[in-house]
C-alpha cells in the first residue's frame, strides 16, 4: 500500500483558504505542463494545494507575501512535479518520458541501496509497478507519485522511496537491527553503568543523561545518533548537515564535552558533589558510554504522521 502523505502544515492547522497563485501563467508555461495535457486550472490546483499545505515554506503562523509565494514556487522542481502528476494521471507521453529518463537510474539506485543486484532489480520492478498505479483504493487507482511535491528532484525522490521500502522491509524482517552491521543480533549492549555501580546509581545517571540530551539541539542529537549509534562516518554526515567533515568532527567534540558537563551538573542537582559526580562518571568523563539508542529515539509529537510502509511482496 503506498504511503499517503499528510502535509505537515495542514496537520498543524494551516488555513485552507485558497490563495491566489501569482505568476501562474508563467509558471505553467515554464513547467511544460501543456505537453502532458495538464491544463492551466489543474496546474493551479496542484500548486495551491502544495503551497497551502506547506504554508509556502514558512512557519505555521506566518502569512506568505506575494514575493514569498513566488519564491516558494520558483524553488519547486516544477518540471518534475508536472511529470510526476502526469504519470500519476496515466498520461502515456509522460510515462514514456519517465521510462526513458528514470527507468535505468531507478534500477541502478535500487541495486546500490540493496547491495545485491537481484534484490535491487526486484525492488525497482515492484516500485515501478506501484508507481504505475496498480494499487487501487475505493476503486481509484493510486500512485505514490501523487505524494511528490517537487521540493527535491524526482530522481532523489525515487531513491528515497526505494530506500524507504528497503529499510522498512529489512526492519520488519530483522527488527531494530542496523543494515550496516553484519553481526546483527550480536550488538554489544551499551554499558550505561559500570558493573560495580548499584541500580540506584544507574537510575540516577540515566535521569541525568536524559535531561542533558533533552537540552541538545536537534542537529546535535542527530549528530550523536548518526555517529555513535549508526556509526556513520564524518564524510557521510557532513553533506547532510551542509558542512565540511572537519566541522562535523569539531561539532562532535564540542557536543560531547557539553553533554559531559551537563550530566555532571545534573548529577550535582541530584545532591552529589562535583568531585563525587566526576568520580561517578569515572576517571575520564569522555569515556562515558551512553545508551543513545534508547534515549535519542524520541521526537516531538505530531510532527509527522506518515507511517512506515512495508514493501509489497517482500514481507
Amino acid at each position, binding site marked *: 500500500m503506498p504511503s499517503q502523505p499528510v502535509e505537515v502544515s495542514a496537520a498543524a492547522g494551516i488555513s485552507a483558504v485558497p490563495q491566489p497563485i501569482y505568476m501562474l501563467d508563467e509558471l505553467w508555461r515554464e513547467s511544460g505542463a501543456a505537453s502532458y495535457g495538464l491544463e492551466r486550472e489543474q496546474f493551479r490546483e496542484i500548486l495551491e494545494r502544495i503551497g497551502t499545505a506547506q504554508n509556502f515554506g514558512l512557519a505555521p503562523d506566518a502569512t506568505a507575501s506575494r514575493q514569498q509565494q513566488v519564491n516558494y514556487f520558483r524553488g519547486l522542481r516544477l518540471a518534475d512535479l508536472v511529470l510526476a502528476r502526469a504519470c500519476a494521471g496515466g498520461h502515456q507521453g509522460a510515462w514514456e518520458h519517465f521510462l526513458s529518463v528514470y527507468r535505468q537510474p531507478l534500477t541502478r539506485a535500487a541495486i546500490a541501496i540493496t547491495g545485491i543486484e537481484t534484490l535491487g532489480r526486484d525492488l525497482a520492478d515492484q516500485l515501478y509497478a506501484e508507481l504505475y498505479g496498480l494499487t487501487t483504493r475505493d476503486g481509484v487507482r493510486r500512485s505514490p507519485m501523487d505524494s511528490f511535491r517537487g521540493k527535491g528532484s524526482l530522481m532523489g525522490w525515487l531513491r528515497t522511496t526505494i530506500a524507504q521500502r528497503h529499510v522498512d522491509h529489512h526492519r520488519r524482517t530483522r527488527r531494530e537491527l542496523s543494515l550496516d552491521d553484519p553481526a546483527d543480533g550480536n550488538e554489544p549492549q551499551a554499558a550505561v553503568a559500570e558493573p560495580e555501580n548499584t541500580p540506584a546509581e544507574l537510575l540516577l545517571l540515566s535521569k541525568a543523561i536524559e535531561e542533558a540530551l533533552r537540552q541538545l539541539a536537534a542537529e546535535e*542529537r542527530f549528530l550523536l545518533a548518526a555517529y555513535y549509534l549508526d556509526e556513520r562516518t564524518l564524510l557521510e554526515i557532513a553533506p547532510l548537515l551542509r558542512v565540511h567533515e572537519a566541522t562535523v568532527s569539531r561539532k562532535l567534540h564540542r557536543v560531547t564535552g557539553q553533554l559531559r558537563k551537563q550530566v555532571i551538573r545534573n548529577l550535582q542537582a541530584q545532591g552529589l558533589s562535583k568531585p563525587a559526580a566526576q568520580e561517578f562518571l569515572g576517571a575520564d568523563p569522555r569515556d562515558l558510554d551512553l545508551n543513545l539508542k534508547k534515549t535519542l529515539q524520541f521526537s516531538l509529537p505530531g510532527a509527522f504522521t506518515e507511517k512506515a510502509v512495508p514493501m509489497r511482496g517482500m514481507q
Partner: protein
Amino acid sequence: MNSTSQLDLHPDADGLNAFVEQALAVPEREQILAHLAGCSRCRQVIFLAQHAAVEAEAPATQPTNKPTAWYWNWRLAWVPTTALAAALALVVTFHPWRTTQMPELAKAVPFRDEAVPPPLPQERASAGAARKPAQSLAANSLAGNAEFATRRRMPEELVQQSAPSAAPPAEPGASAPLNGVSSAFLSSPVESTQQKTTAQFQTEPAVAAWQQEQQRSSGTLSASADASRQIAQKSMRAEAYTVHTSRQTASSGPRMVQQSQSMPASSFVIGTQQQFAGSAASLKTYPPKLPSGLTAVSSATVQHLTLEIDLAGTMFLSDDSGEHWEPVARQWTGRAIEVRAKTGLSGNTATAGVFELKNDAGSTWASADGKTWSAQ
C-alpha cells in the same frame, strides 16, 4: 522526558529527499532534523539515498580517472608550438608574395649577361657604359652573392612566364607594331627609375637595386620612387604585351626582352623624360620614323614646324608635318632629352614659334625656328 515515540510516524519521501538535497527551508529542516535525531529508520533511509546518489554520480566522474594519452600531457606545449607554426606559415606565405611585388628589380639588374644579344650600332655607344655595371653584377653573382642573384632571377622569370598571357597594353602608343627598339623603349623605364632614385646605379647597380628593395620593404621609399615604380609596372605590362605580339608575328620575342635588360641608355632617356615632363604626354610612344631609325622620345610642334629628339639625343626638324626630317646642328651641351613648345602666360602656344630644349643636365635652350638655339 515527556516525549512520544515516533517510530511509526515519519516524514514522507519528499521531505526526506528534500532534506538530503538541501532543499528545505529552515523550519522544515529543523523539523526533519529533530525527527532524524531519534529515528534510526529515517536516518538509514537518508544515508542509503545519499549513498545511491553518490553511486549514480560515480560513473560520470570515473572517466576523469582514466589514464590520459601521452600526448595530452603535452597540451601546454601545444600553445607556443601552434603559435610558432602559424608565424612560420605566415612568413612562408608572404615572403614570396612580397618578393614578386617588385619585378622591377629584374629589369634593373640583368642576370644572364651572356644571353643579351649585341645592341644595335646606334645604341652601342650609349649603352656601353651602362653594361659595365651589369657585367660587374654578373661577376658578383658568380662570386657567391647567391641571395641577390635569386632576387634578380625571380622577376625575370616572371616576365617570361607572363608573356604568353599578357594583358592588352596599358599605353595607347604600344598598340602600334613594335620592333626590338620599341620594346626596349617600353621596358626601359624600369631601369630608368632605378637609375633616378639611386645615384649609385651607374657605379654599382646591383647594390643600388638591393638597397632600393630594402627601402621598399621598410617603407622608406620616397614618393618619387613610388611614382617611378608605377611607371615601371606600366612598362612591365607593355613589355609583356610586346613579347606577346612579337611571338604572334614570329619575331624575336625573347631577344626583345633580353635586349631591354641591356638598354640602360634608353632607360635613362625615358626616366629623365618622365622627370622633366611629369605628365602622361611624356610617356607617349613614337613610331620609328626619324632618319636615325631610333624612336623619338620628345616632340614639339608649333604651326608647321615639328621638332623631335630620338633616343640618342639627336634632334630633327620637319617643316612638312613629319614627312621629311633634317637633323639640327648640335648647339647645346650634354644630351638633349626634351623639346617642347614654349607657352605664354595664357597657356597657349606661342605664335612666334618658340621652342625650348632641355638637356640631361637640366639646362635650357630656346629657339624660334628650331634651327638656331641659344642658352637660357
